[in-house]
C-alpha cells in the first residue's frame, strides 16, 4: 500500500483539502462574459454584413442586455477578489502573459463599446428619447459616422472576450482538466451558442428566430465535437489528464456533466431546434432556455472540477 499524507497538518483556507479558491463568481463571470460576447458578436457581424434590417433583435435589441451582463460579470469578479481595495492595480499594467490581465482590459474595451452601441440604438427602441445635452448628441453623431468601425471593434473584442473565457482556465497547466487548448474554442462556441439562444428568445420575428436556431444547431454540433475531442485528448495523455477525464467518466461530475450539460444543454435543444426547423411546432423558448442553462452549468462544472483535478507527486 502506498500512503501519502501531509504530517504537518496543512489546512490552508481555500486550498486544503482541495483547491476551492474560486466559487460561483468566476464561472458566473465567465458565463455572462461569454453570453455578452455571443450577442455582441452577432450584432457586429450582421451590422458589418449590412443586415441590420433582417435581424433587428440581434443588432439592436439583444445588445441592450450586454452592458448589464458585463457589469454583473465584473461585479462578480470584483466580489471574488480577496484584496478588493487594490482592484485598480489591474489597470496599472497590461500583462500579456496573464489571461486575467488581458481579460480585464478586454472588458475595459467591450463594456464601453457595448454601451455606445446601445446608445446608438436607443432612439430606435424609444423614439421619444432625448439626449438632453448637446454634447451627447454630438457624441452620438460622431459614433454614428463610424458605426462600421465600431462594429469591427466589437466583432474583434467580442471574439477575444469569448475565447478569453476559456483561455482563463486553459492557461493553468497546474490543473490538468483545464490544461487543454480546446477550452478556448469550446467556451467561445458555447458563448456564441448561448448568445444565439438569447437572440432566439428575444426575437419576435420568425425568420430571425429560424436563422439563429440554425446557427445554434451548428454551434452545438461544433461544441459536441470539441467535447468529444477534449476527452479523447485527455485519455490519450498523461496519468493526471486521464484522472481529470475520469472526473467525468465515472467520477463525481459524471451525472451533472453528461445529464445537464450534454443531454439537457446540448443534445435535447439541438433535437428540438432540428424538429422546429423541420416544422414541428412546440413552445419555441424551450430549446434556447435549455442552451443558456446548459452553458451556465457547463462553466460551473469546469470551474469546480478543474480545481479538483491536480498533479500527483
Amino acid at each position, binding site marked *: *500500500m502506498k*500512503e501519502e*499524507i501531509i*504530517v*504537518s*497538518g496543512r489546512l490552508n483556507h481555500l486550498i486544503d483539502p482541495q483547491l476551492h479558491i474560486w466559487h460561483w463568481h468566476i464561472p458566473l463571470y465567465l458565463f455572462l462574459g461569454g453570453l455578452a460576447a455571443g450577442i455582441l458578436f452577432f450584432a457586429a457581424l450582421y451590422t458589418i454584413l449590412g443586415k441590420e434590417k433582417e435581424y433587428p433583435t440581434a443588432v439592436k435589441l439583444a445588445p441592450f442586455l450586454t452592458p448589464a451582463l458585463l457589469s454583473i460579470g465584473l461585479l462578480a469578479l470584483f466580489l471574488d477578489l480577496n484584496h478588493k481595495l487594490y482592484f485598480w492595480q489591474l489597470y496599472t499594467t497590461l500583462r500579456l502573459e496573464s489571461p486575467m490581465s488581458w481579460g480585464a482590459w478586454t472588458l475595459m474595451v467591450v463594456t464601453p463599446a457595448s454601451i455606445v452601441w446601445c446608445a446608438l440604438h436607443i432612439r430606435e427602441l424609444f423614439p421619444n428619447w432625448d439626449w438632453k445635452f448637446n454634447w451627447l448628441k454630438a457624441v452620438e453623431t460622431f459614433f454614428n459616422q463610424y458605426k462600421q468601425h465600431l462594429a469591427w471593434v466589437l466583432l474583434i473584442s467580442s471574439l477575444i472576450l469569448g475565447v478569453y473565457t476559456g483561455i482563463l482556465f486553459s492557461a493553468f497547466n497546474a490543473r490538468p482538466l483545464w490544461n487543454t487548448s480546446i477550452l478556448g474554442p469550446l467556451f467561445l462556441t458555447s458563448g456564441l451558442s448561448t448568445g444565439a439562444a438569447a437572440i432566439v428568445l428575444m426575437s419576435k420575428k420568425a425568420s430571425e428566430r429560424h436563422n439563429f436556431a440554425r446557427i445554434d444547431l451548428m454551434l452545438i454540433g461544433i461544441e459536441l465535437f470539441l467535447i468529444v475531442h477534449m476527452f479523447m485528448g485527455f485519455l490519450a495523455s498523461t496519468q493526471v489528464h486521464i484522472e481529470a477525464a475520469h472526473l467525468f467518466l465515472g467520477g463525481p461530475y459524471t451525472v451533472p456533466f453528461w445529464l445537464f450539460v450534454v443531454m439537457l444543454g446540448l443534445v435535447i435543444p439541438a433535437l428540438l431546434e432540428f424538429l422546429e426547423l423541420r416544422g414541428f411546432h412546440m413552445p419555441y423558448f424551450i430549446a434556447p432556455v435549455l442552451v443558456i442553462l446548459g452553458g451556465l452549468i457547463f462553466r460551473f462544472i469546469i470551474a469546480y472540477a478543474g480545481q479538483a483535478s491536480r498533479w500527483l507527486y
Partner: protein
Amino acid sequence: MSSRRSFIKISALGIGGIAAAGGLSRLATGAVSGNASTEKIDSPEQNLHRTPTYCEICFWQCAGWVYKDESGNIKKIVGNDDDQHCNGRFCPRGTGGVGQYYDEDRLKTPLIRTTTDGKETFREASWDEALDYIAHRMQEIAAKHGPECIALFTHGSGGSHFGHMLKAFGSASITAPSFAQCRGPREVGFLTTFGDIIYSPERIDIRDTRCMVLIGSHLGENMHNGQVQEMSDAIDRGATIITVDPRFSTAASKSKYWLPIKPATDLALLLSWIHVLIENEWYDKAYVAKNTVGFEQLREHVRPFTPEWAYGITTIDPNVIVETAREMRNASPSVIINPGRHVTWYGDDTQRMRAVAILAALLGAWGRRGGYYQPEKLHLPSYPVPPFPVPRRQPTEAYGGKYPLANEVVSNGLCDATIPTVERSCSYKAWIVNGTNLLAAIPNQANTLKAIEALELLVVVDTMPVELTGYADVVLPECTYLERYDMLRNSNHRLPNLALRMPAVQPKYDSKPAEWIARELAAKLGLEAWFPWKNIEEMLDWQLKQMGTSLEEMQRLGVKNFPRENDDLYFNENEEAVFNTNSGKIELYSSDMENEGFAPLPVYTAHEEPPEGYYRLNYGRAPMHTFSRTANNPNLTDLMDENVLWVNPKVARLWGLKTGQMVKLKNQDGKQSTFAIKVRVTERIRWDSVYMVHGFGHNNPKLTRAFGRGVNDTELITRVHIDPVMGGTGMRGNFVTFITEFEPNGKEAEA
C-alpha cells in the same frame, strides 16, 4: 461514580475575569524587574529584544532566546548556540512554545471549590485568599495526621520550589511521573550494573558513535533534541543504526536494520544477542576481564538463548540477529545500546534494562568514546537555609517494603498509599500537584481517582484547565516559563554548564511563578526562615556569584559552559576504573538484585497476548507534541490537532475500517474510550497492534482546541504490570477492540 469531589468543568463560574488582585499580587510584579537589563543586541534583528530562557515544553530543557518585537510582544523563541542540549536549534515544540503563552484558555486566576445551590463549582479567588485557605488546611491536616501526610506530585521546574516548601513543612514525600512511569527501570537497571545512572540528557555519545541500537526508542518522534541532532549527524557520518520496534517508526525508516519484533519479546532478543557475542567471542575480552564480575555465570545463563530460540519468540530471523550482533562487534566499543527513556512497558522492565546494560558492558561501550560517556555537572551551592526538619516518615515507608531498588520516589506508590487501609497508620491526606496531569500520566485512572477521593485537600498548580484541575479543591494558575524565573538549569553533560530562565514578559492574567507561590505559601505557614531571600533574583545571583558569574552576566549569556573538573569524559585506559557497585566492578551478575530476591541475571518471561478480536494498544510520541501538555497549544495544534489510530490494512479490511472513519475503543476490561478517534490505515503498524500518540482526548471543555479530540490512551490502560524491582507501571499489556457504532460526543459532535 459517586464522589465527594466531582469533576468540575471549570467553566462553571467562568475563569475569564481577573479576580480582584489581592495585596500580594503587587509583590509579584517586582519579580520581573529583570526586564530592565535586557539589551538591544547587535544582530541582524536589531529591533528585537531578547532574553534568555530554557524550555519547559519537555524535560530536555534546551536553552534559548525569547525575542520580542518593538511593542514587547513575544515573537519567537530560538535556541542558544552555546547550549549543549540544543546547539542553537529548538525542536518544534520548543519553537512553538510561544503558543503556551498566548493560549487564551490558560488558567487565569486562583479558584476555590465551593458549593452553591447544592452544586459544586469553582469561584475565583485572590491569591491572598487562596493561599490562606491552603495554609489553613495544611496546618489542620498536619495537626491531625502529621505534616508527612502531605505529598507533592510534580513534574518540571516548579518542583524545586514546592519541594523546598514541603521539606521545610516536614514532608519528604515528593515524586514525579518521570520515574515510575518513565525512566525508572533504566536507571535501576544501569545502577545495579554500573553503579551509576543514565541521567537526563542521556550520557550516550551519539555524536561519535559508530553503531546505535534503538530498542523501542523512537527518536525523530521522541524529539529529545540533542539526541535527534546527534543521530542525524551520526547517520551522515555513516554510523549503523539498528532499530528494534514492532512499528515502522521514523527511526526505523532511517536505519540500516529494522527488526520488526513481536511486541513484548525484546528481552529474548537481548539475551540472544548476548549469547551470540559470547559464543562467538565477539565481546571486548580485555574490558570484560578488567572491569566486570559475573561473566562466567552470564555465559552459562545465556547458553540456551540461541538465535533460533529467539526467533521462535521474537520472529526475528536468526541470521539477522547474528548479523546485527556482528555490526555491534565491528563498531565496538563505539556502540550505544540506547537505553531508551520511557521504558515502563511490561513489568519486567528493570530486567530488560539490565540486559541492555550487560550488552553495553560486553561491548566495552561504557566509559568509551562513541558509547556512554562520563557526564559532569557543577557543584552549585544552594542558598544557605536552616536544616529541614526530619520527617517522621520517609515516603518509601508509605509503600512499605515494596520496590526495594527504587532510587526515587514511586508516584503510583504514593497514590496507592493514599487509599486508606486498616493497617496503615497514616495515609496521605493532602496532595499538592504541580505541572503533572496525573490522569494522563499515571495509568489505571480508577485507582488515581480512588486516591483523590480519599484526600482532604487537593491543590493543583497548572497553567491550563486539564483533567486533574477539575478534581482540585484549589487551583493555582502558574504563569508560563516565558513569564518567570526558575532555578538555574545545572545539567549533567559533556561540559558542566548553567542556564538561566528569566521572564521575557510580565505574567499574563493573574498568574504567578511557582517560586513566588511557594514562598508566599511558606510565609503563611510560618516557614519564612527557609525562604530568606528577598526575591528569586537575589537567590540566583548569590548562587551564580559562587560560581564566579552573576545574574547580570547570565542575563546576557543565557548559558555558560564551564571546564570539566576531571578529565574523564571517557575512561583513561591506563587507570583502574572504579564502579559504585557492591563489588566495585560492573556487575553482569547483580548482587543488588540477588540480595533483594530478584533474578541476578535477566530472565525472559512470556507476556500475555491479545485475545481474539483485540489488538495490543501501542502508543508513543508525535514530534510536535509533549504528552498531554501541548494538546491545546495554538501553534502546535496547527500541526496536529488530534491523535489518530494506526490500523494495519489487513485489520482494516477485516473490520471494514477506512482511513478517516471514527471509532471508539474498548479494552479487555470493558473500559470504553470517552471519545472517538480517527482511523489511519497504514502499513507502518503490525496486524496485532494498534497505535496512537499519547496525550490527546482531553475531556475538559475549557480546552477549546483540545476538548474531545482523539482518545486518551491512559484511560484504556487499566491493566498495569508493576515492576516489583522499582515500582514501574508497565503499560503496554492492554488490548483494545473497535466500536464502530456510537453516539458522537467529541469534536465530531460539534459538526
